[in-house]
């Protein structure tokens, strides 16, 4: 194939690794967007990623950057340790909702509160994917999971937590937004947000997080197409797509 005809290829910042994710899962899309942004910003050589525990535990296999693998929920603390001793490097965590919003709530809130100059890519698919679809803090009211078999009863199992809004209340946060990966238009918007998050870090403008609404066809028991539909119809009303916080200095950034 000649270069003129090439319309799609791996980002240079990707390794040649076959995916381990389930068919229809949007983790792969999120990975690709990050790799494209790092390529476009020329950051691949200086980036250190922090992988979580969960479905994306093997995230380090896909990126052609240095990577470390954190204990469950502790990625923002590890990223803090790396960024504080290597402030000129680009450091990002990649975390799911069980990792970030459940066991890692302390680490994420305090990394944001300290205004750590790190970028967090937060995949919210409303359940614990890797362990087989248990209720997460982000599971929606009434949603069935293997540990809320009758649907999440908010009276006994509490309410879903909206992370992008919650972190937006903290002064250390430069950029906290929510996007979705359910169709091409939203994927493009998600990429722009990821770009803005890394721009925030690169300019030293504080903590940055992009929450990405994602599908989990396997554990939701839906086909990939129906999972995208479920996301659009059920998750977006519960987790509105919004610029929860764009700091004044970040607003000035033109990309």
């Amino acid at each position, binding site marked *: 194939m000649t270069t003129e005809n090439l319309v799609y290829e791996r980002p240079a910042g990707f390794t040649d690794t076959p995916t381990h994710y389930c068919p229809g899962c949007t983790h792969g899309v999120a990975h690709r967007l990050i790799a494209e942004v790092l390529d476009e910003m020329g950051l691949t050589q200086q980036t250190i990623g922090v992988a979580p525990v969960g479905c994306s535990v093997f995230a380090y296999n896909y990126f052609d950057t240095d990577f470390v693998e954190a204990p469950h929920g502790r990625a923002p*603390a590890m990223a803090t340790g790396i960024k504080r001793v290597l402030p000129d490097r680009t450091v990002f965590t990649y975390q799911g909702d069980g990792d970030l919003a459940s066991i890692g709530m302390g680490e994420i809130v305090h990394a944001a509160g300290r205004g750590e100059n790190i970028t967090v890519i937060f995949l919210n698919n409303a359940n614990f994917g890797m362990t087989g679809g248990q209720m997460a803090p982000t599971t929606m009211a009434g949603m069935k999971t293997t540990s809320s078999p009758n649907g999440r009863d908010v009276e006994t199992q509490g309410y879903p937590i909206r992370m992008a809004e919650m972190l937006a209340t903290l002064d250390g946060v430069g950029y906290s937004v929510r996007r979705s990966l359910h169709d091409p238009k939203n994927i493009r918007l998600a990429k722009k947000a990821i770009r803005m998050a890394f721009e925030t870090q690169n300019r030293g403008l504080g903590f940055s997080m992009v929450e990405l609404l994602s599908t989990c066809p396997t554990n939701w028991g839906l086909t990939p197409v129906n999972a995208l539909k479920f996301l659009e119809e059920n998750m977006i009303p519960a987790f509105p797509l919004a610029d929860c916080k764009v700091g004044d200095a970040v607003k000035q950034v033109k990309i």
Partner: protein
Amino acid sequence: MPKELWKGNEAIAEAAVRAGLDAYFGYPITPQTEILEYLSKRMPQLGRAFVQAESELGAINMVYGAACAGVRVMSSSSSPGVSLMMEGISYIAGTEVPAVLVNVMRGGPGLGNIAPAQADYNQAVHGGGHGDYQPIVLAPASVQEAIDLMVLSFDLAEKYRAICMVILDGSIGQMMEPAEMPEMRPMQRADWDWATNGKMGKRERRILSSIYIEPVDEEIMNLRLLNRWKTIQANEVRYKEYFLDDADIVIVGFGTAGRVALSAVREARAEGIKVGLLRPITVSPFPYEVIDQLTSRVGSFLVTEMNSGQMLEDVRLAVRGRVPVEFYGRLGGMVPFPDEILGEIRRMAKTKLSMNVHPRDAWLERMASIV
């Protein structure tokens, strides 16, 4: 350098700085908080990293991150905080990155109290976290030794890509003693061939992880750690001997319990009792061989600890039932007086010792009249 009056915790902090400490992450807990406070001022002065973390969990994982980046890094805490750090310690061991952790031990279990104790011996020498690994554990008995061992701890951690813990009790952390600081080492980051510090156009990517998803790979990794541990056992055992040349009774005690025992040994010697002291400095690797050799030429051992006889079991492993082993401990934050240990020495010198009863049981009976 001339001797100066140093408080134990602050001396530990300054010694780490002079050994090239690049980053410190910690959380307040008595009786080690002065380490955190001292470094909160000292590290920024020198342009080095300091973060007061949100918890010990946060702190140890910041240590983990900085260790992966290849810099000299440490944290410090006290017993309950160290328990909270055990997750991170296991990951650090599993990732084979060097890190130093100071535990200024206090009375436990649970919240316990803030008095000096040695009750975390088992947790420290047996790893404490999940999985198959062993940390190097150093136990100073004075402020000067704490300074010297802090410097050594970084060298050992880096040499073996392992955790090095320095365990002391609150009394050494809080006491002031004249001590000599080492010269300030020039700060120069090592260029480790494993560190995840960014490719920077110079090399292939690196991944640091404690995942070995295939059991066969995990077994290979476990064996690698074990073989490294055998090397550590062969090369890094450290201890101090006092009056052992002609000793008939040998006291074994580490840290403050060893130091108190030394006072008792001196008094007993003045009375003509042939008693000496073996003070392990590395409680892990433990000086089994030295005790094994002593067993062939001494009459009995007395193990003194500020716990219920945790190191006692290691001494018994080395002695292997060949001579009597006695035990004297104080618990829960109580520190033994030299007179208490002197009493034990006198008793052992004039009594025919039994090997038919476990030394802990015999001690418990004697304790009934004390507590």
